[in-house]
């Protein structure tokens, strides 16, 4: 009855290379262009905002100072305390880069979140993996393994059970879940928007069932607004978790 055919998953996230052949290692497609644009936007906003360094900030400087303060107060101080302040530049640029990559999901005519391909979230999670384990080794030297694997106050006999579990969760599963959290959220959002777009275009007919057209059309507007929220929230959560992992690696509490 409907001319309804949902495109296979490959069609909505795979983009052909327009520089280089289909298998070229240097091939550039839409997603790579979005990476470049996000990087340029992130750098550009901070260059613009810190050019004048006025005492009373205006315009872009105002925005940049608010953003840095937000990361300092809400992420660094909440998760790591004072000794984490040296990670602020990394966390600020991480959050902005992810946010720009995400927000292309709802920008008309582009509408592809760059983080819906697993390459970028995986790279960022592995970068964070190197950074927080590096911070742990720097702080505890070789005692880091004991710090990471042996929770305090566990009876000796239970260690044979606890240490493998901690090893799997800290060194293997943690980067995986860090990756998948960002990737799957954005992929799900993208599929959701595509679903309602397909439904809307299928209902755009002269048949009687065109009276249902307003429903998916309204849903698409609603979910677009929702995805703006998700884009910000996932950038925030990814950065927050990076802070939590760094703190868990370098802290001295236990």
């Amino acid at each position: 009855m409907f001319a309804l055919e949902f495109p296979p998953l490959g069609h909505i996230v795979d983009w052909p290379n327009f520089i280089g052949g289909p298998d070229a290692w240097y091939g550039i497609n839409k997603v790579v262009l979005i990476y470049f644009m996000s990087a340029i936007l992130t750098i550009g906003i901070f260059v613009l905002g810190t050019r004048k360094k006025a005492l009373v900030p205006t315009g872009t400087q105002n925005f940049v100072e608010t953003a840095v303060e937000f990361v300092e107060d809400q992420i660094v101080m909440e998760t790591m305390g004072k000794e984490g302040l040296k990670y602020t530049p990394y966390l600020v640029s991480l959050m902005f880069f992810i946010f720009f990559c995400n927000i292309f999901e709802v920008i008309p005519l582009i509408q592809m979140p760059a983080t819906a391909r697993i390459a970028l979230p995986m790279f960022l999670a592995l970068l964070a993996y190197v950074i927080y384990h590096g911070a742990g080794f720097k702080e505890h030297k070789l005692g880091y393994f004991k710090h990471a694997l042996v929770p305090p106050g566990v009876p000796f006999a239970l260690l044979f059970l606890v240490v493998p579990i901690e090893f799997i969760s800290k060194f293997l599963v943690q980067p995986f879940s860090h990756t998948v959290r960002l990737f799957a959220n954005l992929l799900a959002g993208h599929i959701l928007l595509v679903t309602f777009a397909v439904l809307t275009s299928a209902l755009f007919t002269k048949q009687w069932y065109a009276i249902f057209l307003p429903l998916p059309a309204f849903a698409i507007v609603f979910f677009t607004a929702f995805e703006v929220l998700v884009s910000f929230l996932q950038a925030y959560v990814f950065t927050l978790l990076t802070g939590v992992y760094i703190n868990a690696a370098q802290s001295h509490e236990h």
Partner: protein
Amino acid sequence: MLLAHVSVLLAQAAPGVTNKGIAALTYGLGAIGPGIGIGYLVGQSVQAMARQPEAAGMVRTTMFLGIAFVEALALIRFVVFFLGQGN
């Protein structure tokens, strides 16, 4: 493995049920737990914020952290859903 079991059982009971349908069904099952978890978590956080508005900032950060951890389960299920559709 469990999925394979269920798919064999369902294929005997109801021919015409595909792996795709079962993958969708198990996604629905996998969403129950995180759904309850996030609901309870946010409800309790809202209660905490209403009782002690001056601690709202701290509660909110912890709430997002908890949501992120609970949500990961549903999202991993979502990824397995696509993997399961392949065959």
